[in-house]
């Protein structure tokens, strides 16, 4: 059992963007991701997941700091203006 310091990037955004965001993340070099369905409220209003409102998704990507930085930069430029989007990073210990 070895542990390895890594960065966890959490992306919360609109469910309608799921396929698009996965393509972006994979393009930028992420080796994996984990998605859960979510709902929430932010500056773009409430997204309760009803069909006329859409829900959110919560994407976790584990990678090195550079990868996470690249993803943050790309998503901010392309989606922050028009879509609900929130991102944060946490240092973690990957167990492997």
């Amino acid at each position, binding site marked *: 059992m070895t542990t390895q310091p890594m960065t966890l990037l959490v992306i919360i955004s609109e469910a*309608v963007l799921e396929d698009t965001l996965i393509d972006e993340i994979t393009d930028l070099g992420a080796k994996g991701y984990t998605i859960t369905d979510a709902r929430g409220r932010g500056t773009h209003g409430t997204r309760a997941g009803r069909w*006329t409102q859409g829900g959110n998704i919560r994407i976790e990507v584990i990678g090195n700091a550079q990868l996470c930085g690249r993803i943050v930069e790309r998503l901010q430029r392309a989606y922050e203006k028009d879509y609900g989007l929130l991102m944060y990073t946490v240092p973690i210990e990957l167990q492997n």
Partner: protein
Amino acid sequence: MHFEPVVLFFLLGVFAGLVRSDLKIPSAIYEALSIFLLLAIGLQGGVKLAEFELLELLVPSLLILAVGSLIPLLAFPVLRLLGHMTRADSASIAAHYGSVSVVTFSVAIALLAQEEIDFEGYMIVFLVLLEIPALVIGVILARHGVGSVRWGKLLHEVLFGKSILLLAGGLMIGFIAGSEGIKPLDILFFDLFKGILALFLLEMGLVAAGRIAGLRAYGAFLVTFAVVTPLLSAILGTLLGWALGLSLGGTMLLATLYASASYIAAPAAMRIAVPEANPALSIGAALGMTFPFNIFIGIPVYLWMARFIHGLGA
């Protein structure tokens, strides 16, 4: 005035929403209900379509599409100039009103069935066809001179989005199988149709309740627009249906198609293609105002209009 009990479920849903009841239709269920409605409507249309000579339908179809395309083209300048809305919002709302609503259409069919009025089965084809020019026009209006359009992505979204795919797929299956082949599916797709429409209306009421509350924020202009546009579009449809020699039922359905505004296919497509438009405005107007107006007042009025113009001819 003609009254369809199925709309009472919409009222129940609105009531539950307004009193903040904990009643919720799980999302998996309303997705299933909408898949069911789209497939069932498509199958019904396909079975009826099999009775027609397809070539004979070509010219009326092109006319119905051409006149239908006028609706977003006329709505756009009104929204832009009278409503002082942004280019993106005007284009997106215009696209919603150029598109059609499957549930509104279903309530109209239920009323015709109750009144025992027949109609040309191929009207259902226009549920599929009218969507496409409306969304394309919406995007062109939004992008005219500003920015570029990812047409590939948009067309993919429109043509292979679940609404069109299920309607068109149902049409093809119904057409191929014919009324004989489809018989063992009748109970599910035809006999249960209205009950499932009732459940869907319950959910629509729940959602509309939230939208109705929000409408005040959008101001008097949008509310007026959401009531006047369907009436004018319906007049266009009634005149064209009569000119094309459609039956009483067919005329009324064409008016309903023109009058209805989309709140399933159009929002999804516009969110991708015109993301800077505020979806609350277009969905609020289409679902919070135009949809209830159509099912409670519009549809009976459109039937009356069709009767009136057919009476003139007689």
